């Protein structure tokens, strides 16, 4: 018991020192920080800048593919504006150091919410597969051949993607 108490005290002291050192060095903020070229910088401007560049590139690609009779520059601008919020948010999520975000759980991967998300993903995948399959069957019965074929291909695609991901996860988890 004395050993456990001593270990608890040393653990608490070590964690407190580590936390204090980290906070002194980089500080926590609402949007956190990111390590860039060896320096710790605010993550929000980095996310916005990356989002701007990526959404401009995607906007130009989208403009080249859009059939609408409109000036190419205008199409690219509109597509970029539409994509900017989502792409910036994604860029921020991918680059931020979670340990520098205020209120973020240190061991978020161990939260019960993660299990809920996994279970929801499993159930929603199965529900979607069943609904798409049933819709294909009903469409075929009602004589909507093309729709039935499209839905059937979607169901097959879902099963193939599951198989591919299963193989990746299985072989990726090998020691």
């Amino acid at each position: 018991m004395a050993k456990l108490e001593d270990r608890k005290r040393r653990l608490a002291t070590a964690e407190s020192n580590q936390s204090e050192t980290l906070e002194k060095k980089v500080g926590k903020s609402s949007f956190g920080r990111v390590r860039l070229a060896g320096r710790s910088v605010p993550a929000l401007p980095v996310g916005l800048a990356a989002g701007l560049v990526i959404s401009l590139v995607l906007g130009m690609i989208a403009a080249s593919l859009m059939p609408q009779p409109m000036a190419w520059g205008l199409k690219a601008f509109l597509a970029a504006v539409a994509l900017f919020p989502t792409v910036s948010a994604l860029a921020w999520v991918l680059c931020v150091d979670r340990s520098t975000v205020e209120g973020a759980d240190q061991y978020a991967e161990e939260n019960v919410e993660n299990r809920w998300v996994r279970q929801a993903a499993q159930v929603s995948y199965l529900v979607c597969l069943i609904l798409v399959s049933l819709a294909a069957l009903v469409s075929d019965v009602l004589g909507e051949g093309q729709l039935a074929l499209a839905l059937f291909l979607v169901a097959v695609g879902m099963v193939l993607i599951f198989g591919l991901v299963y193989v990746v996860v299985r072989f990726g988890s090998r020691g």
Partner: protein
Amino acid sequence: MDNRLAELRKSRGWSQEQLADMLGVSRQTVISIEKGRFDPSLPLAFRLSDAFGLTIEDIFRP
């Protein structure tokens, strides 16, 4: 899994939020463990035992 987490936490005067902060997890995780609806990961179980100064077997009952 049955556990004495709620009883041990209250005996130390800790709130669920305080314990969650100590463990680095969400308050909902602490609530779910206390109600026996969620089994903690092994690292989390060890951090729980360290937080209370008890062994894992003292806290959890299979």
